[in-house]
């Protein structure tokens, strides 16, 4: 028997030894996970009984599961009893008082990214004065959306204000038993984002977690649920483009998207968690489950991701194409430098007729980074006329990095049309010399070549995001050659 399973079972079966008492006055629970901890989280968040039960069932199922090890990544075992699962957001009084108290390296990175001063303060968690109060910004924004019937709030708030929507859709795309990390998230998630776009509404703004600073700090088990009702349209931006240092190592989020008839969801992510240092010390383990269901006919879900951070990335934003004529897209840039390892890709499951999917994946490996593309295209029997196009390109910078591709095609309908193209190239000495001979510095030459390589994906990002993503790649690649 696997020793981890044994360990988990042991934990599950024995009584909680630490004399844990639910104390509503404290803002954190001791490290470790148990049914009591989950009840505590649920109670602290004043959740309805059905949700508490939902969490507990997820937890019980999680105990029977094993941590997956099929991905092309290596890391020391995670001790799930060492993690603190609930810690109320620190009040601003606990944060740094000014930018002078913040890690200078972090500030230097903000400068390179060209983030305005007051935003830097917010990102670094500095107690911001009233002028830049993020709460009021968020409120103005929310009123504007509410006028159109759009709900955009934290997940906790949605549980209180819109329980019927949450109950209807939560876990309907990523079931609690889906995988080890999704089950863990379902048991312990603390907060996240919720959005609902009503019938026929085109969301006038790009929804962004940036506008809810509090949500950006809600720890490592976020839950996002986004529903686009019939004939609606929304673009959602996730993530800060600044590196956030997190004391905790494990980040296991779940994102669920639901698109009904003729609805269109565009979900863009720029992920830049702390990647660890050159020797692979520290950094975030990012085990994220993202999935969208094109439930209605003619619906469309498009994922765009730029992954530059995290020590480990394990992430496969996927589309379940149930509705006839529905469309799934996945555009990805994943960069692994230092000792980063990324195993990322997508799953496109074609169920409805004439469903179409496009996969464009760009992997960049530098220094000792390891980058794997893992993708599955599944065309079920009834998916008459389904089409898929996949393109996976890898770019290597230097001699010590690696690129790997694991595509999987499963076609059960003979009318399907599936194309897969893959390429691996190295930034050549001749390319660099050519740029340098024209007067461009080595570093700028690398950036130029990398940006060219990523162009097809940058094109999919909202304009401002694309600019920031480019800068981020540049910062992440600094010192990767020479």
């Amino acid at each position: 028997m696997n020793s981890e399973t044994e360990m988990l079972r042991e934990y599950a079966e024995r009584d909680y030894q630490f004399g844990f008492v639910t104390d509503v006055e404290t803002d954190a629970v001791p490290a470790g996970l148990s049914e009591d901890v989950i009840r505590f989280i649920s109670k602290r968040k004043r959740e309805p009984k059905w949700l508490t039960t939902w969490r507990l069932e997820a937890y019980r199922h999680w105990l029977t599961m094993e941590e997956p090890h099929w991905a092309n990544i290596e890391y020391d075992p995670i001790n799930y009893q060492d993690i603190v699962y609930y810690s109320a957001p620190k009040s601003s009084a606990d944060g740094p008082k000014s930018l002078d108290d913040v890690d200078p390296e972090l500030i230097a990175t903000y400068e390179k990214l060209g983030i305005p001063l007051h935003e830097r303060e917010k990102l670094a968690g500095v107690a911001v004065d009233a002028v830049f109060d993020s709460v009021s910004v968020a409120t103005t924004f929310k009123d504007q959306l509410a006028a159109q019937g759009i709900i955009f709030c934290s997940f906790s708030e949605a549980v209180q204000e819109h329980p019927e929507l949450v109950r209807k859709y939560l876990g309907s795309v990523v079931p609690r038993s889906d995988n080890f990390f999704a089950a863990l998230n379902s048991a312990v998630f603390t907060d996240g984002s919720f959005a609902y776009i009503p019938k026929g509404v085109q969301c006038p703004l790009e929804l962004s977690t940036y506008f809810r600073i509090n949500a950006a700090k809600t720890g490592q088990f976020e839950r996002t649920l986004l529903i686009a009702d019939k004939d609606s349209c929304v673009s959602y931006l996730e993530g800060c483009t600044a590196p956030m240092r997190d004391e905790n190592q494990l980040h296991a989020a779940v994102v669920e998207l639901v698109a009904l008839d003729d609805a269109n969801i565009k979900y863009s992510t720029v992920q830049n968690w702390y990647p660890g240092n050159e020797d692979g010390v520290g950094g975030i383990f990012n085990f994220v489950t993202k999935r969208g269901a094109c439930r209605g006919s003619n619906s469309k879900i498009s994922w765009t991701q730029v992954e530059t951070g995290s020590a480990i990335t394990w992430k496969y934003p996927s589309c379940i194409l149930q509705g006839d004529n529905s469309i799934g897209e996945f555009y990805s840039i994943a960069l692994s430098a230092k000792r980063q390892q990324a195993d990322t890709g997508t799953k496109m499951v074609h169920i409805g007729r004439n469903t179409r999917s496009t996969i464009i994946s760009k992997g960049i490996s530098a220094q000792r980074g390891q980058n794997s593309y893992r993708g599955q295209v599944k065309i079920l029997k009834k998916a008459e006329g389904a089409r898929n196009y996949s393109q996976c390109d890898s770019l290597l910078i230097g001699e010590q990095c690696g690129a790997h591709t694991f595509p999987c095609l499963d076609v059960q309908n003979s009318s399907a049309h599936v194309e897969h193209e893959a390429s691996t190239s190295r930034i050549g000495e001749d390319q660099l010399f050519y740029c340098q001979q024209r007067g461009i510095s080595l570093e700028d030459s690398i950036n130029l070549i990398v940006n060219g390589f990523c162009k097809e994906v940058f094109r999919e990002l909202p304009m401002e995001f694309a600019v920031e993503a480019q800068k981020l790649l540049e910062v992440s690649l600094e010192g990767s050659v020479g």
Partner: protein
Amino acid sequence: MLEIRNLKAGIDGKTILKGIDLTVNAGEVHAIMGPNGSGKSTLAQIIAGREQFEVSSGSVKYDEKDLLELAPEERACAGIFMAFQYPVEIPGVSNSYFLRSALNSQRRARGEQELDAFEFLTFIQERMALLNLHEELLNRPVNEGFSGGEKKRNEIFQMAVLEPQLAVLDETDSGLDIDALRVVASGINSLRREDNATIVVTHYQRLLNYVVPDFVHVLVNGRIVRSGDRQLALDLEEQGYDHVVAQAA
């Protein structure tokens, strides 16, 4: 402008250049001719700063600076340009973006104001006409899908935009048909000035019918065995390298 003294260099422990002496002054055009494998391209690449070649002895001075101490981009910013024998493709990067990055990089290094996209476009329009290039070529990725002739014309177009002090043209005529050769040659000629110089590296003398050199040097087996004026190139064409080499021996 350029002074090469007793330059010995090679690659992977193999000596290619066995003692080159060459002086190039402003306003001059020098042709370096020689059979395959004589070291012509090596010499061009060492001037441009390709790092894989090892210089074992000798010196290269450029405007009183020790050229061998400078990085390739520093040489470029100091006014050295090489037209590549095999221009390199850079997928996804448009020709105009690439060239603007290069130009602005050089302008920055010289303490000049950078050009914005609009100013740049105005600036390059006349240069494009010089090389008979279509505007759509600006938006295509650098050298990707270019024909052999387009690549070579693109090299000279870049030269026209960057306005180097010393241009080294490495086998720019190879792979060009006669019409393209004329266009490229007239491009090169129109860039000739009193204050710049050109080194034309070539196997055949046909380019020299259009770009008339002041000096011709014959490079054989890593050494310049003969130098002369334009007539030398014509003799070579008529009599072949073997004959000229035998005479020199």
